[in-house]
């Protein structure tokens, strides 16, 4: 069982702060995702846990043992971790078996045991019949599994994954999500997973750490992050969102530019930012108390993704697939706002932070 503690970790390159005062604790058997746009510091965080980078200040502990601090530094090879790299980093001069057996070889494992363990882990990643292949004879997805098998073979208590699925095609990516999750359950290991894909974060994680510009934005389970984002950035980065200005008074919010008033039981008063997720707006036929004109609609198979103009605002609405073609472009529809989020007013344009 394993526990990783990050204690006020800061990383600077010269004057540039890539990670600012980051504190967290990753507990036994947890699947942790570090989520954020590229350049937010999440990969740096992972590489500091692995030992490829040294924190400028702060402390990292694994199972209570300090591996990185002002005067202690345990190099990566002594940390006993497993890691899958974005580029796979499968050694081109070794066949699949040798790639996977390498960590065991370093641990002076007896040959018979190496054999058994490698076979077993290759079975887990569905590569049993490819043991003798060279990496150049494998597809990208297979190379990726080799990297995964190699990271798992020495039974590390912590598995680090650096955007491992970003080079795979969509179908395979989706399948690997479940496989990685499955393997984590079976082996009961800690996983720290770095990604910019909120879908991956949602489906796999026990807890998600949302990071932006080197600053931790929110920690929580996927449902929590999605339903109760702590700020506008999180609301926008995790999921889709329409931002509107509004005025909160006496338990009601009057929206700016849209002729609608929402019931609100929260504490914020005065000018607020209202965030409405597109799937929380329903299209209804006939007159509702909020009406709009359909500007465009896109059939997505499982949903109908459309833009509706109401007042002087264009709202994105993700409606049931069956609504596609029912109203038609430029027709008037009724809108029902089923749920929304309220934040203190901020002038930042959160969409611009996203890259």
């Amino acid at each position: 069982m394993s526990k990783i503690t990050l204690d006020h970790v800061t990383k600077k390159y010269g004057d540039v702060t890539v990670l600012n005062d980051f504190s967290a604790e990753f507990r036994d058997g947890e699947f942790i995702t570090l989520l954020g746009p590229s350049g937010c510091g999440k990969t740096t965080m992972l590489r500091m846990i692995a030992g490829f980078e040294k924190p400028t200040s702060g402390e990292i502990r694994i199972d209570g043992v300090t591996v990185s601090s002002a005067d202690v530094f345990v190099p990566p090879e002594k940390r006993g971790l497993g890691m899958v790299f974005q580029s796979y980093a499968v050694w081109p001069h070794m066949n699949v078996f040798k790639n996977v057996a390498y960590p065991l070889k370093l641990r002076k494992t007896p040959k018979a045991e190496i054999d058994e363990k490698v076979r077993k882990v290759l079975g887990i990643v569905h590569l049993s019949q490819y043991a003798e292949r060279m990496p150049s004879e494998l597809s990208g997805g297979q190379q990726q599994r080799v990297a995964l098998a190699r990271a798992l073979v020495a039974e590390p208590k912590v598995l680090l994954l650096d955007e491992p699925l970003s080079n795979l095609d969509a179908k395979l990516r989706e399948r690997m999500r479940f496989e990685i999750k499955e393997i984590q359950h079976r082996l009961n290991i800690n996983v720290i997973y770095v990604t910019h894909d909120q879908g991956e974060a949602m489906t796999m994680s026990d807890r998600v750490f949302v990071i932006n510009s080197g600053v931790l934005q929110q920690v929580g389970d996927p449902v929590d992050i999605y339903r109760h984002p702590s700020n506008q950035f999180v609301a926008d980065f995790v999921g889709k969102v329409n931002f509107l200005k509004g005025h909160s008074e006496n338990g009601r919010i009057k929206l700016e530019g849209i002729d609608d008033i929402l019931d609100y039981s929260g504490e914020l008063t005065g000018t607020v930012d209202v965030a409405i997720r597109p799937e929380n707006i329903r299209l209804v036929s006939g007159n509702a108390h909020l009406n709009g004109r359909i500007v465009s609609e896109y059939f997505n198979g499982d949903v109908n993704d459309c833009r509706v103009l109401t007042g002087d605002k264009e709202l994105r609405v993700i409606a049931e697939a069956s609504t596609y073609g029912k109203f038609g472009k430029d027709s008037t529809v009724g809108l029902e706002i089923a749920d929304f989020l309220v934040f203190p007013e901020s002038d930042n344009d959160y969409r611009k932070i996203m890259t």
Partner: protein
Amino acid sequence: MCIINEDTVLKREKKFYFDVKWLFIIAIVGFLLVFQVFPLIYLVIRAFISEGSFSLSSFERIYSVPLNWTCVTNTLITATLSMIFGVLLAFPLAWLVGRTNLYGKKLFRTLFLMTYMVPPYVGAMAWLRLLNPKVGTLNVFLQNIFGLAEAPFDIYSIGGLVWVLTTFYYPYAFITLSRAMENMDPSLEEASRISGASPIKTLLTVTLPLMLPSIAASALLVFVAAASCYGIPSIIGAPGKIYTITTRIVDYVYIGSDEGLTDATVLAVFLMVMALLILFISNFVIGKKDYITVSGKSVRPAVVDLGRWRIPITILVGLFALVVVIIPFATVFATSVTMNMGKSVFEPGNFTLKYWETIISRSSILRSAQNSVVSAVWAASLGMIVCIIMAYLLKRTNVRGRKIPDFLITVGSGTPSVVIALALIMTMSGRFGINIYNTMAIMVIAYMIKYMLMGMRTVVSALSRVSPSLEEAAQISGAGWLRRLRDVVLPLIVPSIVAGWFLIFMPCFYELTMSNLLYSNNIKTLGVELYNYQTYHSQQTASALASGILILVAVVNFALSKLTKGKFSI
């Protein structure tokens, strides 16, 4: 299993810790300081100090003495022209052989690199036979065909010198450029094609600009090589009374007078400063560019289809190879079995093997050959150890001071052979407590200083093609520094290491310039032996020796190619 325990924690790393890697750097830097930096600096100081006080009067002699001034201009003209022609030849050849569907690419590559693997003075010997204004075989042949009254070419001219220098130094550029070209990410070119550019347009707008650093590097190599070449101008220049800086320096050293030595020193310093200045400029430009083009995923280089030009271009390249490689080599072979040099080898009774018998039986020649092998093996092996460690530290670590040895090695290689030898003679013959003059050690040291860079470049470029994540993957698997080097880095760069070893070994094996200044009667080398036979005794014996070297090169190349399953041949 968790590896973190009390043991590892005890090995606390302090903020200012002593890095083991520094030991390597200190050892290598120390060696270079004593045997390279100090002698060269001494040379510079001596050039500036005349009669015990600082003065520039020695330098006035460069342009005030016509003997010196003509050799300076000759050197500049020939080196510049050879550089231009060399790169103009090497770039298209490297592209055709590396990236297109030209016929016989493997054969052409071997042929072109063959030239690199043989001593330049062999080229001089061959072209001397072919383009002698009176009896040159090729001249006579052309005169007969076109009914010319006079020989069309005169080898004893600036043009002749440039021609031989170019044909023997363009492979330097060819090697650098074809390596760079093969390592380029093909998707960069594909992106250009998909944007609507033709293969030629892509070559000119994407490939060429991306390769500019490599082109600059290769041009530098050719220029410095041509300017500091001694073998070719000494064989061709001397009869034609065309002196270059190198031949002039050697003459002065042989004369041995105090004034002569001063002139030699000043010319050497001039040559060195020029070479190092260009080196600095070029490295400054190249240093800015650093692409990692190969990741952990395997990529296949794209091949450009030459279409209907495939056959004509193949023929053209074939003709070039015939004139530049095959005919000169064949000439040397023919000379080695010719009894009477005035007649054709095909005339009855003019064929003989007695010169071959000479070279495999005469004990002085055998001893020289042995000396050459031993000293070249030492230079290549020690050199590669230094290169591997330094290239690794340079490319893969942030150790302070890692750039110093690299800088010194680069400077050493950029320094003309003649200068290195002169500097070593003047400092290592007991004047400063070290006397290794007249030993093999001084030659091995000189060879290393001069030729280590080729190994260094090869290993560095191989290393930059190995993505750091491959090594990080080994590190996270539990491998320490040496272990990573052994299990991941070395196997991936072994072909380059072997290549680098031979790139050092071969030029050392037949080295002439430095050996000619450093040899003593009991440790002559093959190059010296061959040069003496060519100049003073018997051109046939020299040709037989040269042919022997050619055969050896071919055999080594073949063996190497078999050994590495075709992955590597020179």
